[in-house]
């Protein structure tokens, strides 16, 4: 009997856990270590942030599902990995600290045969002074943050109803942020709500981003075919900004935030500030606070983790200039080379480099969107790890490993631009592959036939449908595994 321990019960870890129990049956043990009791469908936090949904609609308790599926659920935070065990007992283990209210603060060692690190991001608000819910801006990264954002937005709308103009700033709070798509969605949802409230003329909405140009989305932009022409996501996105009257500041690194003012530097080295009444700025991400030790207790964190805290896997991490980046740099199995029984999936794995071209301002400030690892790739990686671990358990070293590189993986993204069954709208996009491959697709790096964008009400219906489908799937209801990642 083998024991698989999964760190993190988010999109990647939860997907891996459900597939592992399906593929392995109950003769093997699947343990999920995750600090929260609730599962959150993070993409719908955007709608919580504008008051269209409440937390109950985007979260549900994990315990009953894990009980039903025979998954050993530990409500705890992993703190250290010991991939070689100790000098006395070489069985690998992880150290955890319980967050479960009945065992709060208790520590334990959990041994494993296979480990999946799916701990996602640490929301690194600390990288920018004054950023985040403990500072002067809001966030929608967790359901709780989104509720606070919605309350603040409601106050701003109230003020506009009393005739007070409001400046609303939405975007990312650091030059190295990712998830620009989520900030974009929130900006357009806020615009939609303000319009619905009849106070659009009193709102100056500004999108503040580290993307060098609009439509970059951290993937270096997209080229679409539309009505017989090739067009860019830049032009397409700018058109939407024009139509909805949203201003934008691009190529920006937020240096600090003070009460009602955001200070930023742009790629050209210019520095400026912007006064705001309401601001939602996403934080930069880094790896969670996990350490690693060898059998003698020596700290080997640098061997397992990149400087940004994400786990190093089977990628080519050689530092090279943008012109030399290759599709093959990207990992295929997400296995840690030095410890092949460890996998890192979802946001937790260290990308070899950005996808979008990084830039440095004349003052030496790095302004470089980090590569997005959205829900679909995260789920695919979780399932891939589950299937490779199953193969390793069943066939040992003869197991044939499956691969899923982001340079050979597509993504479907639906960016909400306003909620409502009749008056909602969203930008639906597909891209293939996520990481451009200049060898297979020399002109644009991606398959033009599979890279696509369209705005309209249908996108909102799809986004709403995905909300219900993915929550159904995450609850492991009958036939859940038929719903693709």
């Amino acid at each position, binding site marked *: 009997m083998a024991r698989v321990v999964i760190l993190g019960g988010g999109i990647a870890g939860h997907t891996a856990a459900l597939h592992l129990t399906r593929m392995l049956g109950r003769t093997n043990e699947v343990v999920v270590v995750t600090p929260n009791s609730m599962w959150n469908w993070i993409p719908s936090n955007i709608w919580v942030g504008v008051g269209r949904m409440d937390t109950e609609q985007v979260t549900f308790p994990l315990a009953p599902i894990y009980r039903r599926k025979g998954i050993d659920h530990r409500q705890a935070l992993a703190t250290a990995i010991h991939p070689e065990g100790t000098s006395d007992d070489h069985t690998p283990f992880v150290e955890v600290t319980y967050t479960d209210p009945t065992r709060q603060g208790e520590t334990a060692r959990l041994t494993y045969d296979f480990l999946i690190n799916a701990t996602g991001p640490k929301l690194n608000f600390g990288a920018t002074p004054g950023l985040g819910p403990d500072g002067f801006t809001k966030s929608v990264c967790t359901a709780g943050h989104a509720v606070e954002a919605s309350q603040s937005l409601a106050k701003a709308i109230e003020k506009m109803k009393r005739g007070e103009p409001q400046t609303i700033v939405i975007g990312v709070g650091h030059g190295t942020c990712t998830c620009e798509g989520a900030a974009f969605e929130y900006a357009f949802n806020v615009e939609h709500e303000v319009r619905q409230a009849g106070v659009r003329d009193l709102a100056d909405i500004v999108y503040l981003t580290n993307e060098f140009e609009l439509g970059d989305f951290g993937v270096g932009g997209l080229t679409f075919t539309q009505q017989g022409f090739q067009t860019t996501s830049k032009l397409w996105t700018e058109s939407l900004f024009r139509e909805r009257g949203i201003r934008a500041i691009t190529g920006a690194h937020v240096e600090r935030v003070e009460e009602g003012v955001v200070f930023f530097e742009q790629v050209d080295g210019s520095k400026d500030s912007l006064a705001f009444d309401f601001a939602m700025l996403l934080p930069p991400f880094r790896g969670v606070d996990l350490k690693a030790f060898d059998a003698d207790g020596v700290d080997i964190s640098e061997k397992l983790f990149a400087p940004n805290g994400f786990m190093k896997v089977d990628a080519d991490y050689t530092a090279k200039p943008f012109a030399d980046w290759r599709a093959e740099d990207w990992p295929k199995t997400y296995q840690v080379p030095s410890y092949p029984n460890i996998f890192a999936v979802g946001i937790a794995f260290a990308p070899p480099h950005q996808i979008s071209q990084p830039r440095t301002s004349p003052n030496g400030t790095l302004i470089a969107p980090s590569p997005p690892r959205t829900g679909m790739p995260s789920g695919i990686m979780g399932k891939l790890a589950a299937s490779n671990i199953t193969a390793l358990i069943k066939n040992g070293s003869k197991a044939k490993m499956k691969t899923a590189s982001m340079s050979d993986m597509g993504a479907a993204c639906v960016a909400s631009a306003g909620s409502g069954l009749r008056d909602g709208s969203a930008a639906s996009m597909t891209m293939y592959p996520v990481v451009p491959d200049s060898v297979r697709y020399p002109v644009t790096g991606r398959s033009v036939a599979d890279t696509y964008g369209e705005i*309209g009400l249908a996108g909102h219906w*799809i986004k709403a449908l995905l909300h219900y489908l993915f929550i159904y799937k995450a609850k492991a209801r009958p036939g859940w595994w038929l719903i693709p990642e």
Partner: protein
Amino acid sequence: MDATDADIAAAPLPTDKTLSARQSVVVQFGRFLAINLKMFKIIRKDRH
């Protein structure tokens, strides 16, 4: 200085016809099927 706002001002503005097609239930029902098909194609490609 940032040219983004100038770029936005110069971007194509959808016509009233395009805007109403984007919100028309009938048109969008067709688009719903078409977009799902495109997404399904990507999902199939991902099944290595």
